[in-house]
């Protein structure tokens, strides 16, 4: 039996590939800005968006009650990202802002799902990922969102690097610093909602950050770090999803665990190599 001919496996691998390529692009900018945990904050807000979409679905008596869950997540994640960026630019402590989003997102999600007549179990698929339920509609949505992330994230790399590297210098050159910061925040939000389907809200940030952390051990250039992280991200998601075809393990957890193991192995090898020279 040719497993690659199975539509479900095709859908899973395609979404996994897109997420694996796109997430590290935005992760590179978040690490550059030393805001690696931003993805967690936005992810929790996205969870409240999932529940709000669920509530809207029940209010409109939609046949598929969670039809608006992903649009709700996209909307809430973007609003959350814009709020974080505005508060950060006004001098608020980034960690405090993110902590408030963490708690507000998870509490709002549980409350709203209850109001929608659902239970916390309905949120589990979004907390831990549910790639095995991905539809062709989800695939095309992922293709569109990933295309935007890749086009902007790679196409404007030098400008986004300039702003995330040294905001004050970038402002002196006349670059639209606020607008570019907002682009990074909104694209991070979009990335999270795309990746949420694969690894879940709880691990979504890992898919953005771990490949970058691994690439950083090997490369010394910003562009190469981004490119290598994209390759590592794609390899991790495809490997993790492929293993779950044969073994009954949770894909998101497996992908992130693989990433952490690869990080440990590469860190050990590079440390030993440095000592040897």
């Amino acid at each position, binding site marked *: 039996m040719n497993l690659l001919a199975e539509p479900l496996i095709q859908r899973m691998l395609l979404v996994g590939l897109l997420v694996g390529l796109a997430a590290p692009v935005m992760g590179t900018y978040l690490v550059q800005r*030393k805001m690696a945990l931003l993805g967690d904050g936005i992810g929790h807000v996205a969870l409240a968006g999932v529940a709000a979409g669920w509530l809207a679905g029940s209010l409109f008596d939609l046949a598929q009650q969670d039809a608006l869950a992903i649009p709700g997540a996209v909307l809430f994640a973007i609003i959350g990202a814009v709020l974080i960026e505005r508060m950060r630019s006004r001098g608020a402590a980034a960690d405090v802002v993110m902590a408030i989003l963490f708690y507000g997102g998870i509490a709002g999600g549980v409350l709203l799902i209850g109001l929608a007549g659902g239970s916390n179990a309905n949120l589990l698929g979004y907390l831990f990922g549910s790639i095995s339920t991905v539809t062709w509609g989800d695939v095309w949505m992922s293709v569109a969102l990933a295309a935007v992330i890749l086009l902007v994230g790679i196409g404007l790399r*030098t400008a986004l*690097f300039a702003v995330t*590297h040294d905001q004050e*210098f970038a402002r*002196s*050159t006349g670059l639209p610093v606020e607008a*570019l910061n907002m682009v990074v925040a909104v694209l991070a939000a979009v990335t999270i909602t795309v990746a949420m389907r694969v690894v879940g809200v709880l691990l979504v940030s890992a898919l953005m950050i771990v490949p970058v952390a691994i690439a950083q051990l090997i490369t010394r250039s910003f562009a190469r770090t981004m490119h290598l992280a994209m390759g590592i991200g794609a390899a991790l998601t495809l490997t993790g999803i492929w293993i779950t075809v044969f073994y009954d393990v949770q894909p998101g957890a497996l992908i992130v665990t693989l990433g952490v193991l690869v990080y440990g192995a590469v860190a050990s090898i590079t440390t030993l190599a440095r000592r040897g020279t």
Partner: protein
Amino acid sequence: MSDPAEIRDVPPSLVEARDVRVSLQGTEILHGVSLTAQPGEVVALMGGNGSGKSTFVRSIVGAVPTQAGTIRLFGRPATASSRAHLGYVPQRISAAGGVSATALEVVTSGLLGSRDGADRVGARLRGLLPPRDAHARARAALRSVGIEDLAKRDVSRLSGGQQQRVLIARALVRKPRLLILDEPMAGVDLESQVAFSHTVGHLKHDGVGLVIVLHELGALARHIDRAVVLERGCVTYDGPPPKDLGVHALPGHDHDHPHTDPPARDGGIGLEGP
């Protein structure tokens, strides 16, 4: 006050700041500061900690808003487009960010933003030069500060002085007519101080105007044409620098102020002393 007809006959100052007032978080930091710089002139902006030197240069480059006064660059009101010929080296102690980046990448980022011909947003965001030409320009800028051989090195692995030279190259790659540097000598090694002094000499010879925030004239003393001293947000001296060294010697200097560098705003690695 000069006669307007007379003004038309002389080239405009590279920077002309008049009675600039800046407030930060409700506190007025600058109480009407004025400064001019002409082509080929090197102006040292001096004063103790908290005197407003950095706030003043940040207002000139557009990093902080002004509440009153006027700032003109190259004869035009200071706007994003009039900063096309401005080079700026912010006060910092590290050129490294959260992700590894080569010196070439850092310097190349200086080619973006307002430039002659970069009228469209796309040109400002992506630059006007093809990547190969942009890299050639960046290499030339690194060569001008004596570190072209470090072009492919990760900036976080460079010494403090080398990192500072990378940031100066990032400003020079814009081919500025006016270069503003905020404490470029703070915490850099002697070799980099000497190299920077040579760079200042070349720029001055080429007609570039420089405004340099300094605590001590040090290795740059022979290039300084004028010293402007700030004290508690006001200009207390504007004239030729004295022959002896340092801000201590300048009129209006508050001798109670300690001469230590302020803490870095954005963290970074520690640097070796001079």
